[in-house]
């Protein structure tokens, strides 16, 4: 009914001034819009200016996408659009409308602007839905004009009005006049946007590159990656897996554990398992040149278990990319995003690859450095001790037996247990075994199990990973690893806590270990020598020492005789030490007075060779040049120290008797006078005589061997 009235609309005659004004307006608008660089400004400017002279409700610009045969909104005049509140609006401004339908084809074939009453066209089956939506919000007529670029349509300007007849001939001619400028402006904007986009991506990559160049640790890298991906790209890092040294397995290197919220347990299970390069997804990714994109929804349909996890993030695609340094695969990266630019993705992955390679190199470097430092420290420490015990002195029968055993066992890799009282030179024996073994070119590593608190001994032996326990700020290489292909000497093995004993047993059995807090198994080839002054069998009985470990260690025991059992070695030892310490102290002492030697021989040496050494050192320092006349045996020591051999339950009389015999033996039967037994026992000679008589001690007792 209304349409009957809308025949040819009556048009006013325009005066010269009005024409002039419109011409000027067109010129100004043309000038202004060609200067516009921001897409949002263009249409607002266009719409506002035009509205001063003409009536229309709103306008939009759509662009043709030739590839898909559609057109889609590009510039919106949001301020005045009456359909902005329409529930379909958000969908419409993202939509792609088909070019292959009568309505838009009519527009494409028209020479200039062409108007339609919405009523006439919106119900046609193929018409785009935005016509109807506009009609529902009161719009009645649409004016469509092609935007041309180089003689090809590149889009449309849509103008809408709620007053039919608004699009007068005058209006159309103005629109026609402005189209070349508008086309220019739109193509400027498109080009500008492309330039901006590449620029943004490039500067983004540059920033990322700068940030990543400073990264030296995994934590830094993780922070950098999360920052870049999440904040600037709306992308989530799902996981980075790296190829292990074996080039077959891949281990999780980094992931965002917050990503899969509720399904954390499943994620941990999946990420915790080591996979191989044969795993179908991984092999596909590693084989691809430019990575792969998995559509989450499609993957779920095809039964990919991982995809269910991916879906919890709400992101649409999983982008996976091989991490490469040069042509070498180092791992895979998995990113969740809705859309990622290929250029950007490629750039980022290249940067991350290099950063990871750097970190790996850095970690290796640090490990080598640490190992060198450890070895260096150790060497320095050893230089001091080795210097003290460069030779084993003594040719007595007991020692001959020890030498024989050493020569038997040294060349094999057999575990040796060195037994002997404190100061008998157990370490010296261990060192002699090591030096006579094929492992002699490497350093023997020594650990004193009694010297470390129980809570540190494990980490000392087996090492720890960073963060394994409070205070573990760095990765520590254990002595076992340090002694790889060499000998580890565990002194005072009897003091090893039970927990560490279990671990030690495992290492001996499996020949492999794990660092504290570490998951990686490390193979070691270590020859073990242990030593103790404790009765291990007794400790086993009391439950202080594991029986199984005891048998493992006690494969080849070597027992060192106490010094008091080899008095024949006291003289050579004493001379050896005098020479050594005289040289050290710059003294010219080359022999020991017989009287002093007699004193040394008559002493019981509870501290064995070590005590002798220290005594000589002190005596050398206190003695004038020439002959060492006095030895400074501590008399208190003599009376208080009891040798372990005399600890059995005996009566006072028995103890007294055997002790007097022992002292007499050492004093070669001399009872009184200097170097006599009475002096050592601190009793007058007569008293000793009467005591001997009372206890029935005869010459036969102290002149027999044994």
């Amino acid at each position, binding site marked *: 009914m209304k349409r009957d009235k809308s025949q040819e609309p*009556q048009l*006013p005659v*325009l*005066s010269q*001034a009005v024409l002039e004004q419109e011409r000027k307006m067109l010129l100004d608008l043309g000038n202004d819009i060609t200067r516009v660089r921001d897409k949002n400004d263009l249409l607002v400017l266009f719409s506002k200016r035009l509205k001063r*002279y003409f*009536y229309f409700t709103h306008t939009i610009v759509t662009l043709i996408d030739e590839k898909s045969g559609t057109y889609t909104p590009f510039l919106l005049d949001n301020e005045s659009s009456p359909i902005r509140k329409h529930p379909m609006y958000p969908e419409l401004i993202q939509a792609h409308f088909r070019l292959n339908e009568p309505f838009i084809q009519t527009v494409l074939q028209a020479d200039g602007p062409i108007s339609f009453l919405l009523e006439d066209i919106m119900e046609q089956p193929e018409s785009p839905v935005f016509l109807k939506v506009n009609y529902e919000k009161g719009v009645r007529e649409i004016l469509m004009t092609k935007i041309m670029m180089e003689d090809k349509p590149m889009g449309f300007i849509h103008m809408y009005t709620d007053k039919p*007849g608004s699009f007068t001939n005058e209006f159309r001619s103005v629109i026609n006049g402005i189209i070349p400028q508008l086309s220019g402006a739109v193509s400027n904007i498109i080009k500008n946007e492309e330039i901006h986009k590449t620029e943004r991506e490039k500067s983004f990559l540059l920033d990322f590159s700068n940030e990543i160049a400073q990264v030296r640790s995994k934590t830094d890298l993780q922070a950098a990656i999360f920052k870049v991906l999440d904040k600037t790209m709306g992308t989530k890092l799902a996981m980075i897996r790296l190829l292990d040294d074996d080039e077959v397995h891949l281990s999780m290197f980094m992931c965002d554990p917050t990503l899969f919220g509720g399904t954390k347990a499943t994620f941990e299970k999946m990420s915790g398992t080591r996979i191989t390069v044969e795993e179908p997804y991984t092999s596909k990714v590693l084989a691809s040149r430019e990575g792969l994109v998995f559509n989450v929804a499609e993957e779920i349909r095809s039964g990919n278990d991982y995809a269910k996890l991916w879906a919890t993030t709400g992101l649409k695609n999983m982008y996976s990319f091989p991490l490469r340094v040069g042509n070498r695969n180092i791992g895979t990266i998995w990113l969740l995003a809705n859309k990622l630019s290929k250029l950007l993705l490629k750039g980022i992955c290249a940067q991350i690859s290099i950063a990871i390679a750097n970190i790996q190199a850095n970690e290796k470097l640090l490990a080598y450095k640490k190992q060198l430092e450890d070895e260096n420290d150790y060497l320095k420490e050893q230089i001091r001790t080795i210097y003290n015990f460069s030779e084993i002195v003594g040719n007595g029968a007991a020692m001959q037996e020890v030498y024989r055993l050493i020569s038997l066992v040294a060349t094999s890799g057999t575990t040796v247990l060195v037994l002997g009282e404190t100061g008998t030179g157990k370490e010296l024996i261990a060192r002699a075994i090591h030096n006579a073994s094929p492992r002699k070119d490497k350093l023997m590593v020594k650990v004193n199990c009694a010297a470390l608190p129980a809570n540190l001994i494990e980490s000392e032996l087996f090492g720890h990973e960073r963060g394994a326990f409070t205070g573990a700020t760095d990765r520590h290489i254990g002595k076992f690893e340090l002694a790889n292909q060499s000998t580890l000497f565990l002194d005072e093995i009897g003091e090893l806590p039970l927990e560490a004993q279990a671990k030690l047993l495992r290492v001996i059995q499996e020949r492999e270990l794990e660092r504290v807090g570490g998951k990686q198994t490390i193979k070691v080839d270590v020859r073990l020598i242990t030593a103790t002054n404790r009765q291990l069998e007794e400790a086993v009985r009391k439950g202080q020492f594991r029986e199984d470990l005891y048998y493992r260690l006690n494969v080849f025991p070597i027992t060192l005789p106490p010094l008091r059992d080899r008095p024949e070695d006291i003289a050579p030892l004493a001379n050896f030490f005098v020479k050594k310490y005289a040289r050290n102290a710059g003294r010219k002492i080359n022999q020991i007075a017989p009287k002093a030697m007699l004193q040394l021989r008559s002493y019981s040496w509870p501290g064995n060779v070590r005590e002798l050494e220290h005594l000589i050192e002190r005596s050398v320092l206190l003695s004038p040049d020439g002959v060492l006349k006095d030895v400074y045996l501590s008399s208190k020591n003599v009376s208080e120290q009891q040798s372990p051999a005399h600890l059995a339950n005996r009566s006072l009389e028995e103890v007294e008797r055997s002790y007097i015999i022992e002292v007499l033996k050492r004093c070669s039967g001399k009872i009184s006078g200097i170097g006599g037994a009475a002096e050592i026992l601190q009793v007058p000679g007569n008293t000793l005589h009467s005591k001997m008589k009372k206890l029935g001690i005869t010459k036969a007792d102290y002149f027999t061997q044994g």
Partner: protein
Amino acid sequence: MKIVVIGGSGLIGSKVVAKLSQAGHEVISASPATGINTITGEGLDEALANTDVVVDLANSPSFEDKAVMEFFQTAGRNLLAAEIRAGVKHHLALSIVGVDLMQESGYMRAKKVQEDLIKQSGVPHTIMRSTQFFEFIGGIANQATEGNIVHISDLQFQPIAAEDVATFVTEAALSAPVNGIQEIAGPGRFTMPELITRYLEAATDPRKVEANQNLQYYGAKISYAALVPAGQAKLGAINFDNWLSSQLAKA
């Protein structure tokens, strides 16, 4: 048909009354002077009895913002209520082109309220929006005069002769209600400074027009094209030159 013309004694009203009477209709020219007062309601019911069409051409006696609003609100309510009581079949009112685009002006706000009252009343209606009458040009010039200069913004301007308005109103009064807006305008479009210059020259007025880009109209800021119709409009037959010569002839 019985037709009541409110404001029948005014510039347009008198012409409409004459034209309708000439066409042989029973026309009542209503104004306070004839005992029909839309503000007090006095005489309304009696006048509207058996009336087919009411043509409301009344204007406010005062142009002060508050007074105008009160006038159009009260008159509109009283009149529409009386029409409903009397069963009037067509209410025709004269409004202004661009009234909704010039809401900065108190007068335009009042006219918009009048339009809305009509639309909401349910009475079958035609709202006829007209551009300015040629007859207003002198007044527009006067209110913009400072000394010897007339300050006029370069607005688009498409005035219509009062005679043409009366003709369109008469036609509409005798046609079916459109239940919407009908715009009418003059046959030519000008800029306001252009037309006022021509007017002053023709009247040998010594004042000079100075055009500006301030977009001012009676002190209110409006857009360039607010005063000219958008979309379909009926155009009057009398152009500015014809009107001017007839005016000069009268003078």
